[in-house]
């Protein structure tokens, strides 16, 4: 495993699959760049509504999703851009969605909080904390009924473990022995309140173990740890061993939303946490293993260029048509038959 908080030693780095970690570094860079572009888009009034950034949490998204097959299923949170990109969604279509433009992943009807790409098995971010946990166990039940070897990964934050669906969903997955990978992406905050002040007991892993669900606790800012824990967990899920919970401790480097300056945090806390930023740590590991800095610079620059172009293209794109507001509500009883602007 990796060394200290600030990087890895060359000795441990040599044990790793460096080409894989380099590729995942590129994925983390793309997630970071996408969210920086979204942040820019919001500051320019292009990205509307609440935008929840996962800057600092990229190792969980990259490490978990890279172990999933394209046909495996993924359920995400309202902080879901990174998970969605890591599952393979098209960044340009996602950016169009964030701007409400034609060609967005959900035709402009979902926006940032409901980002989804069913073509890559990403069944949706969810605006309701904890709500995707029961949906994930149901997706696993469908997999069982269809006799497939797919697995379902369900990401949720540390705030989600204090809602009932977490306890219900874990119990359900265990009693039905379902192939669900629960990932508690613990960033320390329940919106703008520190989760530890709101949570009785030891948290996600302890609660999982109380229901005889295997729980693995890892440093969620350590890409290698996430990658390896997920590889083992997914293999066990596919072998039919029942649900597993990974409790990945990370840190939300920015506020709850892009417009939240997070002034409630103690002075210096975020600055200190930046030193454990997963991109910085992984970069140190790769450089120690001999990957040229220029190669990593190029990866990071390519990510920035890609996402800047995605934002520019989305800005130039036309709005999603207003008429779509009345489409895809329901077949029987659709709004057009029962509603006119004249009353």
């Amino acid at each position, binding site marked *: 495993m990796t060394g200290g908080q600030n990087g890895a030693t060359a000795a441990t780095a040599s044990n790793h699959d460096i080409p894989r970690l380099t590729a995942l570094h590129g994925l983390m860079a793309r997630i970071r760049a996408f969210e920086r572009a979204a942040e820019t888009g919001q500051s320019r009034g292009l990205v509307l509504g609440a935008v929840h950034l996962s800057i600092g949490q990229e190792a969980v998204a990259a490490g978990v999703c890279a172990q999933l097959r394209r046909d495996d299923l993924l359920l995400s949170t309202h902080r879901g851009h990174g998970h969605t990109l890591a599952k393979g969604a098209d960044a340009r279509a996602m950016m169009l969605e964030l701007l409400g433009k034609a060609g967005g992943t959900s035709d402009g009807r979902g926006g940032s909080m*409901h980002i989804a790409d069913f073509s890559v098995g990403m069944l949706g971010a969810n605006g309701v904390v904890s709500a995707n946990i029961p949906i994930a166990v149901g997706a696993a039940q469908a997999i069982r009924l269809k006799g497939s070897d797919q697995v379902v990964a369900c990401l949720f934050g540390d705030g989600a473990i204090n809602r009932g669906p977490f306890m219900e969903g874990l119990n359900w997955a265990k009693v039905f022995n379902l192939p669900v990978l629960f990932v508690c992406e613990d960033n320390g905050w329940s919106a703008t309140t520190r989760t530890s002040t709101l949570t009785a007991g030891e948290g996600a892993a302890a609660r999982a173990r109380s229901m005889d669900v295997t729980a693995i606790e890892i440093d969620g800012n350590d890409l290698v740890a996430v990658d390896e824990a997920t590889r083992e967990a997914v293999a066990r899920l596919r072998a039919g061993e029942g649900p597993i919970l990974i409790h990945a401790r990370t840190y939300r480097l920015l506020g709850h939303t892009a417009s939240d300056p997070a002034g409630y945090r103690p002075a210096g806390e975020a600055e200190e946490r930046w030193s454990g930023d997963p991109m910085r740590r992984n970069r140190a590991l790769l450089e120690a293993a001999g990957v040229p800095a220029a190669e990593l610079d190029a990866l990071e620059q390519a990510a920035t260029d890609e996402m800047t172009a995605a934002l520019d293209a989305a800005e130039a794109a036309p709005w999603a048509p207003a008429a779509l507001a009345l489409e895809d509500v329901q077949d029987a009883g659709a709004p057009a038959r029962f509603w006119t602007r004249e009353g």
Partner: protein
Amino acid sequence: MADITYLEAGRLALAEEMDRDPLVWALGEDLGRGGVFKQYDGLQARFGANRIVDTPISESTIMGAAVGAAMSGTRPVVEMRFSDFALCAVDELVNQAAKARYMFGGQTRVPLVVREPIGMWRSSAAQHSQSLEAWYAHIPGLVVTVPATPADNYALLKAAIRSDDPVVHMEHKNLWALSGPAAESDAPAEFGRGVVRRAGADITLVTWSATVWTALDAAAALGVEGINVEVIDLRTLWPWDRELVLESVSRTRRALVVHEAVQAGGFGAEIAATIAEELHHRLEGPVRRLGAPRAPVPYAPPMESELKITAGDVCKAVKVALGR
């Protein structure tokens, strides 16, 4: 044609759809034992515990799992025992099932059915007796079905199971034992088609579910007095058969909407307002509503009866509407 009970009609519809499509399955509490009212009797023995699934008492997860399973290509039928208990799963139904198709831009569909028995039933008191159909009719994305007869329970449940959109199927607990003609074919019903249960020329009475029978009793009594009441059974509340209602009221020129649910904010208000908007100049009197007072359902029989809409109440309301 052999008669069938309302309960048996529902069970038959589910069994036939499970035979037809291996991706149809049911989940809920105590289904292996047949369900609270025996609607599922024998089905687990026939289809196995993987398709008639006994779940924990976890309404949120029963409904949420159905949403996930529906988005993943199966057709779950959710049993909620009582519409009251479904309130533990309102997020899953209202925020998730009803919204997924729309907020994901049509990338997914949610073909789930939730069976939510409604109505007052033998001193079951405030948490087992509610008729909450108006809540769901208010939510974009949901279909709401309220069958009054065995044939309609059969045909509407079939339609609900085959629907690609989520359906709230509300069976009335006092109708389980009702016996009547079976459906004329094994075809699913069409949502949004009401039916005239009794033709009349003096006033149109619009209703649904068990109150259809109350209304028909009232209409029979009024018929003896020479008042001809037309009784429309809506069968589905969303979509509802606007055309049938408006055509009828444009002939009778008077309308009364009757339902067991609380009158305030009830679906009767939607129907009454629509009639008033569309037919104002043809009406010979204001459209009237008759529903329960805005009180929880009590336990003691005399109090429970106080809240029930009876045929006598309907007769009185019709006479008021007719100015007699």
